[in-house]
């Protein structure tokens, strides 16, 4: 089998620069649910909740050595910096270089593991084989026992995908664009069916492996961290509703662990791509992540959050607040009696605080003061709850009134001196996904671009 010849004579530093730069748009995270203790001799273990090792200047977590094997590519996806029609410096790692970098970064605790993707060289099968060989080397020669996330290349020989699956913790096939039409317009070499085939194969592989593991505990593990995928948001014309529906069916039909949303960044000059004067649609991406959480952990369905007639998320309210103010018949919820599922639907109550409420009220009724201490965000929850039959303040259960208060509270407290930024309230307990709405976004909102 041939080796890659591009970029020979480059230093490791130069290669890393090019191949990390080319991989940066891929999203991955290590909280995969894989918990693997060390085996007592080789390097590595995995932690179910994932570990962030650093944060880059864009505020995104750095947890994996995220690189391409090569940025050479025979395809011509319009949104991609590596497309064959672009004149950019090309490079390729040797398998040993990747292994050494991974091991040396890992033992210095820079990273949690490796994220390996690649442009398509020669053919999908050829590329997949390179990837597979690299992983094999890393696992068996270098005895790396840490986390590996790898891309499955659509169109590659299924047997290679299978073998790779036994070496990786997570695999992902990128959906790239939410709909088949979008794909056709921006990625002429890719086809929806080709993308879904390996996704299905991996899903089936995980199922078969589960049965095997039930029989033989020591059977080799296949993609134990599940599979994920990624969609580019805002490069094509899909609505939030369409995107969320796609995500929902990926979770249901393909049992994906995660769907990642990636705000479109315009790296190429191409008439087929939208011009985004305000920069990448970050707020939209943020709203999709919030809604995604609601689907996975809060028992919501896409159709409850959006519809054909309301296909876009509210800019000022998060999806849960937005749902709540449109479903006031559901409220107020009595904290001391409501079911866990009902509690989850209250704005300001997260998964953790809902669990704490259910546990704590066994020993007697809760009051507002205690609720606050359990982690409920009272200034958002207060419109929707009662404690012992009473509301915290005299408020009106009325859509306009609540919206005005939810948003004006925010404005009063959150608007900075420039008067343009406010901190976006987060749906999540840990605040990990908080981000600000930028002036550009305010502008985008104003001109209806979001």
């Amino acid at each position, binding site marked *: 089998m041939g080796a890659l010849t591009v970029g020979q004579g480059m230093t490791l530093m130069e290669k890393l620069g090019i191949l990390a730069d080319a991989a940066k748009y891929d999203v991955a995270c290590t909280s995969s649910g894989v918990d693997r203790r060390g085996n007592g001799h080789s390097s590595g273990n995995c932690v179910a909740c994932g570990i962030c090792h650093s944060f880059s200047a*864009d505020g*995104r977590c750095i947890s994996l050595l995220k690189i391409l094997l090569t940025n050479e590519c025979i395809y011509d996806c319009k949104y991609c910096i590596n497309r064959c029609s672009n004149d950019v410096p090309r490079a390729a790692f040797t398998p040993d270089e990747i292994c050494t970098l991974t091991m040396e970064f890992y033992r210095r605790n820079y990273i949690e593991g490796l994220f390996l993707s690649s442009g398509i060289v020669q053919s999908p099968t050829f590329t997949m084989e390179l990837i597979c060989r690299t992983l094999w080397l890393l696992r068996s020669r270098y005895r790396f026992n840490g986390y590996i996330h790898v891309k499955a290349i659509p169109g590659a020989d299924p047997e290679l995908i299978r073998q790779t699956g036994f070496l990786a913790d997570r695999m992902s096939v990128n959906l790239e664009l939410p709909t088949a039409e979008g794909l056709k317009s921006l990625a002429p070499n890719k086809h929806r069916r080709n993308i879904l085939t390996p996704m299905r194969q991996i899903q089936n592989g995980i199922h078969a492996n589960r049965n095997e593991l039930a029989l033989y505990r020591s059977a080799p593990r296949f993609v134990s961290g599940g599979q994920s995928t990624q969609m580019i948001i805002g490069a094509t014309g899909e609505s939030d509703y369409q995107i969320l529906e796609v995500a929902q069916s990926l979770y249901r039909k393909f049992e994906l662990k995660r769907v990642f949303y990636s705000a479109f960044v315009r790296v190429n000059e191409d008439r087929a791509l939208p011009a985004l004067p305000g920069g990448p649609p970050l707020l939209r991406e943020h709203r999709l992540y919030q809604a995604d959480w609601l689907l996975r952990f809060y028992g919501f369905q896409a159709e409850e959050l959006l519809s054909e007639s309301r296909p876009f998320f509210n800019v000022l309210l998060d999806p849960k607040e937005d749902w709540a103010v449109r479903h006031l018949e559901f409220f107020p919820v009595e904290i001391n009696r409501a079911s866990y599922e009902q509690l989850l639907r209250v704005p300001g109550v997260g998964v953790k605080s809902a669990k704490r409420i259910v546990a704590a009220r066994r020993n007697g009724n809760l009051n507002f003061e205690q609720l606050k201490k359990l982690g409920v965000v009272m200034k958002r929850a207060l419109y929707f709850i009662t404690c012992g039959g009473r509301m915290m303040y005299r408020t009106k259960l009325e859509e306009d009134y609540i919206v005005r208060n939810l948003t004006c509270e925010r404005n009063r407290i959150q608007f900075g001196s420039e008067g343009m930024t406010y901190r976006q309230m987060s749906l999540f307990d840990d605040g990990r996904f908080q981000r600000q709405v930028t002036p550009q976004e305010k502008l985008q909102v104003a001109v209806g671009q979001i």
Partner: protein
Amino acid sequence: MTVYQCEDSMESVFTAVYRAYEEKRPPEEVSLSMTDEPMLFAEFIPVEPDRERTRKVVSTLWRNFGEDDYLKICMALAAPDPEKGQAVYRTIVHGLRDKCRQGHLFDDLKDDYVRKTFELARGVLREYDHQRGFLRFKEVELIQDCRNVAEDPGGELWGEFSLCADAGASREAGARSVLYARIGPKNHLLTFLMPHFADRFPGENFIIYDESRKIIGIHPAEGREEEKGETSGTGKGEGIRKEQCERKGGSFRGSSGDAAGEQKPMTWYLASCGDGFTALDGLRSSGRELAYQELFTYFCLKIAIRERRNLELQRNMLPLRFREYMTEFQKNMKQ
């Protein structure tokens, strides 16, 4: 009122808890103090940490409340809070009295003591999560003259590694070197960080130095069982005092190993360093160390998306106080 006066250690608090039960004192009339603040009309009992009593308390907690809640108690005791002993004591009393089942010790967050312990544990866990990722090792060279000088306080420490360095010489690269990390956490995290890294890097010699507490964690590479007997005696050096020499691997985590089942227990030590402690001064990076530091710093630069630049978000996620210890934020690195 009886006041048990504890040192700032898990052993001490657990011993006091045991004694309060042993002496059958009503919990309302007991207080665990970690300061020497005087209290009127109280009987003061200084507590000597006792291994056997501690062991009994640990096994009771583990059996009754399960591993997770036991760990939370340990975490709470790692916080720099003088009230933690009292909070933990009353949490245990509460749990035993209410016969809390495993995993339910912290259900009753309405109770002030239970919530206090819970919040302390959560704070420690948060910093632990950060530290586990943000800690940076660098590869250092063993210092020849340092480990040969008998009077040197650090002599024993380096002796430890010189053994593994020799033993490892025939093994793969990596076993020959020592990884060194310096941290400055708010909480006493070494007892949690050591098992994590010992599990992750069984074949590495590593040292983590907590400069806020002047405590050092030492993990010699596995695979040199014979030599260990000799070096694990009580420390003689003035500056360095070995605190825990026994295997700690089992005492914080369950034996819930993976499919492989039979794992070797992990070995690591904690040692507290006195004022004269200088063994870590002037550590020299290994020859290739700088190259990897530069590679990683460059990687961090390249992986950021310019169009999404958001330094405030970065600061929220990675508080500034960690950065002085992190390779990729050092000024001399080309960022």
